[in-house]
């Protein structure tokens, strides 16, 4: 039992790392632009399917697929910002209108991908699926790659804290008015946050698709965990969101030992709901770097 739990915990921690990266990618957009960008789920799905198309259908090397996925997702994210959100922001639309626009974009992509690729689960043919022994426990290859998320997350935090454009992003997130008064180009900063956040979502889509396969609906439940991490973690920075997402991912995996199969997803979201009700102001204060 203990060995099983240890194994599940390790699976969970790796899975959680993938969700953490997704939370960071969502957080970069949400904390900077304050749009509840549900269509980030569509970015996630789109990136996954773009990689599938290039690697499995066109048979190109996976590196090419990754580059293609990054480009497709970033372009989509920036398009959503420029074509949908920016005009609405100019009209002083309330947040709900931007959210509805986001729902529309998500729906369009889900429908489109279903039309083009069908609704069955697809897998990356060129990535290894076999499990690997790590000491006493066994992990699928995909899960072995998931901890790499933390390198990306660390790079993001360093970027946000150290570089000029990273500081612009944080300044705009704190107060667009003050940032604008200081001469920070608002439109460009928004575009940067969508491009960066969307690109990062592709990395988590790669890990997700590798371990669970791709479906047109994959974005919505994944983005729920990612965005809930950000919201429960609080608005200051992306690290709190990442930490909450790891906890949620780990819980989801460990629950396998305690709830009948099939019920884990429901149990995870029930726990998420409880966390939301118990701690609605965010868990973390201002002590983390970002």
């Amino acid at each position, binding site marked *: 039992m203990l060995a099983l739990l240890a194994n599940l915990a390790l699976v969970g921690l790796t899975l959680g790392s993938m969700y953490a990266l997704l939370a960071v990618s969502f957080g970069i957009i949400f904390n900077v632009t304050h749009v509840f960008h549900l269509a980030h789920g569509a970015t996630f799905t789109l990136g996954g399917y773009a990689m599938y198309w290039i690697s499995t259908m066109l048979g190109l090397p996976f590196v090419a697929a990754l580059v293609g996925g990054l480009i497709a997702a970033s372009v989509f994210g920036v398009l959503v910002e420029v074509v949908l959100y920016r005009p609405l922001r100019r009209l002083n639309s309330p947040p709900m209108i931007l959210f*509805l626009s986001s729902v529309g974009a998500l729906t*369009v992509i889900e429908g489109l991908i*279903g*039309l083009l690729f069908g609704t069955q689960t697809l897998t990356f043919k060129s990535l290894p699926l076999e499990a690997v022994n790590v000491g006493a426990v066994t992990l699928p290859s995909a899960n072995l790659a998931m901890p790499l998320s933390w390198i990306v997350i660390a790079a993001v935090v360093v970027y946000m804290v150290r570089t000029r454009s990273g500081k612009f992003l944080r300044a705009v997130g704190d107060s667009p008015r003050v940032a604008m008064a200081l001469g920070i180009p608002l439109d460009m900063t928004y575009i940067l946050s969508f491009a960066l956040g969307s690109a990062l979502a592709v990395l988590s889509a790669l890990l997700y698709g590798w371990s669970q396969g791709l479906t047109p609906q994959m974005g919505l439940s994944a983005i729920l965990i990612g965005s*809930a991490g950000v*919201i429960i973690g609080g608005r200051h920075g992306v690290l709190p969101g990442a930490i909450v997402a790891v906890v949620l991912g780990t819980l989801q995996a460990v629950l396998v030992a305690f709830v009948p199969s099939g019920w884990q*997803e*429901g149990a995870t979201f029930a726990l998420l709901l409880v966390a939301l009700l118990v701690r*609605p102001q965010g868990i973390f204060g201002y002590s983390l770097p970002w």
Partner: protein
Amino acid sequence: MVNYVAQILVMVATFAILAGSLNLVLGFAGVFSLVHAAFFGIGAYTAAQLVLHLGVPFPLDLLAAFALTAIVAGALSVPMARLTHEYVIIGTLALQLVLFNVFVNWEGGTGGSYGLFGITRPAIAGVTLTDLPQYAALSVAVGLVCFAVLFWITRSPFGLALKGLREDERLAQSFGKDVNGQRVAAFALGSGLAGVAGMLYARFVGYIDPSSFSIDQSLAAVTILVVGGLANLQGTVLSAIVLETVPQVLRFIPATSNAVPQLQLLFYGVLLTALVRLRPQGLIAERPLIRAGARSKPQSSEAAAAPAVPVPDDPAEAPGEPLLAIRDLAKQFGGLRAVDGLSLTIPAGRVTGIIGPNGAGKTTVFNMITGYLQADAGSITYRGQELVKMPPFRIARLGIARSFQDVRVFGRMTVLENLVLAIQPSESPFTGWAGQAQATERALTVLDEFGLRDQADERVGQLSYAQQKLLVVATLAARGDPFILLDELAAGLDQESVNRFAGLVRKMAAGGRTVCLIEHNLEFVWQTAEIVYVLDQGKLLAQGTPEDIRRDARVAEIYFGGTQAAAHA
């Protein structure tokens, strides 16, 4: 062809009910619910199980679907009522996924992912409605009943209250509205009607599985609602007709019949994104529930100069006796002691001023008196009753009215709606009508007195700042509460308005009401107040008559710094 049209009619009726019930929850009450499809499902499964196992006849299955869904939704919404903004979206989305997971896995109740088969059509007067046109007639009839209920609820005083809590919950609480209770009631009723739609659906298709009750269905209901227009039931019907007919037509075109769900998603998504950009108010825009319109105006045009202020009936205290007593009150925010062991009393029938520099804790005290902030320690008693830990709406119902520093109004409601909501005595859709009619008459008179009659049907959000403040004062005057707390009423007003408001405040006190005001505009305080408290860093620095305070060197010090201050004051 007849069957084809009948089938479309059934689907239109079903989804009109689904979107219409969501309109109550989202359009009126402002709760962004993404869990509506799950309640649609609960209604469908309830009806299916009752029909399959107990042979329950129509309309008992409908009533059971309604009741069970409403009870489940109501129970779930009690803990969720405290969520706001994005938390509501995340919370209801999570709940949708949890309930969907239950539908997929609970084989005893829902048949799991295989679903439930063999649900028969209902029988009416011994005739089973196997023909599509017959069932279509039933669906339309049920739809009409549901919409009659929705029209009745939303046109009633309760509908106005829902719009108010949607616009500004804190303001609604300050008028004594039990916003959490109202939200739970609206959520339960709206979800119950979604359950009715689920029953219609289950008995139409005869076979249900979880795929009909997924998050996509919630998003579809949101789309139908938003395209039709929020807080507008005619729009919902119109939108349901258009948006449900299109996928049904696609089903009959060979080229598209295989990919209807995907095409429907695509169509709804494009429509939604285009609509919020081009016509965010929806096909039919929201309209005011109450209109002044062409009602005859009272002739007294001079009344504007001297608004009448109603006298509260029978004040319990003689003027000067303590009405409100604060003892050892404390509130800390992080490391900051905003209020630090404060004790003071507010005498009845007088105007009390509370002054002090920014950050002295004045507004924090107001927020604790009115229940918007929880005191860390100390007590606040009003007429011998402890106010600490009482929710804001209960405090308001004791006769304590307040204004907010950031002028709060129900922005997308008209001036008249704002005032009527503030003074209507009951929110009941059954017994509140007469009270609302009287409130409307009275509101029109008050608007006339305050010179706002011509703006009665305008949205408050479009008024000038000064007019919005005037409306706030008119509302407080019209409500007739015995105790009024005014938070920086004079801020941002020109001298003429300041003088006018000072006159109104004096008149309120002369009529036996107790007024307590926070001000930075000292001139306003000297004009109105009889007792002045000075706060500094959460503590009482000085108290006395305006004359005392003007001569107090310590007060001058904190206001102007240095020694030249006394001359200034």
